[in-house]
């Protein structure tokens, strides 16, 4: 029986195979910056506070990752490619789940999948809301081209 860490690593390998080569560098930078937030000395306490809340672990993890992605997106001043939000969420979720597994145990790929489903739903909810607001402000259906080189936090690399 493979450990959770081994299993989730297997998933990440499948994910990496599906990422277009030109997106891999950006995805790596998003993942690194997300982990910086998760494990920075000054901010890790918030992660622990979240983990200690009542509720289903999958919900806490998934919801937290959506919030983290929101912050990364804002830090990038909107330059973070939207098409990489959910893949980046999957990577960061994997790291968070590994952390929980090592400290509390009990993590499983089923919990990971439930959390990833929540990440998917949360990001899509934000996109739906954003499109609604764009429509209200006279930009219905507009989908401007994204910058080719992300700026700000995501663009600054390690």
């Amino acid at each position, binding site marked *: 029986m493979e450990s959770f860490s081994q299993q989730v690593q297997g998933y990440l390998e499948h994910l990496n195979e599906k990422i277009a080569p030109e997106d891999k560098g950006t995805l790596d930078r998003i993942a*690194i910056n997300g982990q910086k937030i998760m494990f920075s000395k000054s901010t890790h306490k918030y992660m622990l506070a979240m983990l200690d809340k009542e509720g289903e672990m999958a919900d*806490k993890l998934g919801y937290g990752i959506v919030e983290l992605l929101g912050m990364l997106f804002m830090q990038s001043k909107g330059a973070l490619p939207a098409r990489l939000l959910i893949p980046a969420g999957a990577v960061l979720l994997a790291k968070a789940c590994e952390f929980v597994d090592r400290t509390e145990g009990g993590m499983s790929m089923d919990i990971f999948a439930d959390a990833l489903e929540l990440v998917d*739903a949360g990001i899509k909810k934000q996109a739906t809301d*954003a499109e609604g607001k764009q429509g209200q402000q006279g930009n219905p259906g507009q989908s401007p081209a994204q910058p080719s080189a992300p700026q700000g936090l995501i663009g600054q690399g390690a």
Partner: protein
Amino acid sequence: MPAVAIGAVSIWGGTAAGFSLAAGFTMANVAAGAMIAGGALSVFGGATGNKKLASTGMLIAGAGSVGLMMTGPVSALPGAAGGAPTAAAEMAATESGVMNAASTSGSAMLPSQAELGSQLGVDAGMAANTGTATNIGNAANVANTAAQPLSAAARYEALMRNQLLATGVSGLTSGYTGYKQNQIAEDALHYQRQRDDTEYANRNNLTGLTLRSPSLPRIGLINAQRS
């Protein structure tokens, strides 16, 4: 994840006005990423014999895209204006993708179309509002009479409403400025050990223990408390 500390509303909702106008933040672009992450999960589930992973992956990816995900890297996702119709067209054109996937990766691991349709019901309603996922709308028709478990979308809405995870703490973004990449693993291990200590203390009824001060030796703390 720790961004949750900023509060359930403050990150996405608090900047909604500016954020909603961010270039490229559209359902189509987001869905393109979902195809990748969900497709990978579906393939992984199929390969490991975990039906839940396979079905959840398909749900995230969108039913029609699964056949697409069985191929190599998804290079047809430019993310710009052309990305949306491309992804949507691929999803619509691969309506039989579920069956294609079944024939290539173990049909026993994949859910039936009726089951999948049931799971897709709520997301389809959301997607239908944007008019970007007609094939999911078809799946929703299958699901009309099916019992609906609490979907991820509903769970997310409930979490937002309840602000279950909000703590009202602000100023998080400044905390990691200058944080070095090579510190990540070290600090992750550090916090892992701290958490291990906390668990240990809880299990052994060691109260009054201050375990989260990074300046104090871990073992020393435990030994001091024991003595």
